[in-house]
């Protein structure tokens, strides 16, 4: 079977290797997915007027801020993992990607704790419009985090064997995984103030 072309070299017509064009098309579709959710939030909030609760009165702002910092650090370690591969330093790549995965799990743990606290206080998606949009938006975001953990864990574990056979291709794969991870961080950068601070 022939190898898939343009995994390392760029195509002449796009100027990109295929995976990079693919991930940006995917991220563009993600912009529209989260765009629809943010638009729904704007519609619900403007429609509710003064009855819309301040997020800080219901949600734990400091936990949200802590999670924001966790995601920002994980974005940093993700890009350091890619930079380590560029410098051909595989152990440092493993370290940075491993930290990224652990930070993602920490984020999910804190989010799970937040959800559990809300349920203990009998705050469910059916409780109010605010809680419905809160659980929907943070839930969809958490699913993206889980997806990122699965992909990054694969590249940290069995997928990392490719480094020995095709290091350039592997570096490109990590760049693609990094772009996805930064996007997940980017979404949280807007989710946090919209839901927790305003």
């Amino acid at each position, binding site marked *: 079977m022939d190898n898939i072309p343009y995994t390392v070299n760029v195509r002449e017509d796009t100027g990109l290797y295929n995976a990079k*064009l693919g991930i940006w098309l995917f*991220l563009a579709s993600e912009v*529209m997915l989260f765009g629809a959710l943010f*638009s729904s939030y704007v519609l619900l909030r*403007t429609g509710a007027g003064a009855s819309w609760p301040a997020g800080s009165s219901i949600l734990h702002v400091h936990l949200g801020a802590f999670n924001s910092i966790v995601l*920002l650090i994980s974005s940093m370690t993700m890009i350091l993992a890619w930079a380590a591969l*560029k410098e051909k330093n595989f152990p440092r790549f493993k370290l940075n990607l491993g930290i990224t995965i652990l930070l993602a799990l920490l984020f999910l743990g804190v989010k799970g704790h937040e959800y559990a606290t809300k349920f203990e206080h009998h705050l469910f998606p059916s409780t109010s419009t605010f809680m419905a949009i809160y659980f929907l938006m943070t839930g969809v975001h958490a699913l993206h985090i889980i997806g990122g953990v699965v992909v990054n864990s694969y590249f940290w574990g069995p997928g990392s064997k490719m480094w020995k056979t095709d290091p350039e291709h592997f570096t490109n794969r990590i760049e693609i995984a990094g772009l996805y991870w*930064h996007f997940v961080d980017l979404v949280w*950068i807007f989710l946090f103030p919209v839901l927790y601070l*305003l």
Partner: protein
Amino acid sequence: MAEINIKSEIQKYFKIFIILIVLMGVAVGVSSFKLNLGWAVSIPLILGIACVMGYLVSWQLMHLSSEKRTILVILALATTFFISMILLFLAAHFSIPEGAKYVS
């Protein structure tokens, strides 16, 4: 993306990371410490901070600043769709006749 000097890039990433953390702190501070700014000031301020953070992540960490035009066009289309949707919703909301009420 063009060839880059990784050492200098890593230094740049650390600077951006520090700026992101500071901006996050400012946003939480504006919201938490009740700076008596009022919603008319604090909402644009907090959203403005989020936009600056978003710009730093997308433009610098995701390397959009040095990315091909094709990708910028793809993202511009998606972003236009997103902003249009929000403006459409806002336009619909503000065109509701005075006195009309939502029926639940």
